[in-house]
């Protein structure tokens, strides 16, 4: 189910808190504007969903460069957990 309030950024914050990671989170000072834009994209994820899927879908198409027409779609965040 889509959760309009959850974003790439809030998912990263949750991963950091849950797994003790150091994933980048906003405001991302000094980062490319395109990446900051991606961090605002919505994700198909609900906090507390268990077990966490290994792949989280990011909604929308994204341009990795501020200029140009290069567009990436079907974006996912892949989580690998090894013991």
């Amino acid at each position, binding site marked *: 189910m889509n959760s309009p309030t959850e974003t790439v950024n809030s998912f990263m914050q949750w991963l950091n808190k849950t797994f003790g990671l150091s994933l980048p989170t906003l405001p991302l000072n000094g980062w490319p504007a395109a990446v900051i834009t991606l961090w605002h994209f919505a994700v198909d994820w609900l906090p507390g969903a268990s*077990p966490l899927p290994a792949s989280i879908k990011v909604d929308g198409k994204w341009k990795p460069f501020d200029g140009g027409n290069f567009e990436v*779609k079907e974006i*996912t*965040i892949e989580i690998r957990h090894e013991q």
Partner: protein
Amino acid sequence: MNALVNSPTGGDSVTVAVSGTFDIQGQSVTINSQDITNIKSGINFTLGQPVTLGTIDDFIDWLNKTFSTPLTSKQLDDAIDKLPSSPAFLKDIRDALLSFLHATITITMLSINTQTKVYQFGVTVTPNPPISILGLLELDSIGVAITSGVTGSP
């Protein structure tokens, strides 16, 4: 979809990456980032696996349309057409260039650096028939590297 254990224990290792696809000449190409835990700025993407496409002519036009590279296949074809067809070695070069432009290509490497805004393509060109130079040299596969940066909106 695979599930991930949601309760880390001591000694666990968790990595996070971003994947996506882009379309090129009717094909969907997968790119993957590095592990983004602890990265300091920007994300780098690389090609998931080699992709065989159409001709390098088509690829040049895709680069022009997508990244505003300053060259089209027509400009290249026109330049080659202006080459003299005699003596024989010039004809060989002209034919070789035409064969090269209409050969099948495979993208073997792709690197996208969002921080530096630099992208790199590694392409293998397979001319059919192989390119012959003066009957002495035969080229059946040629590697080409394309590196450029994005400077602004087209």
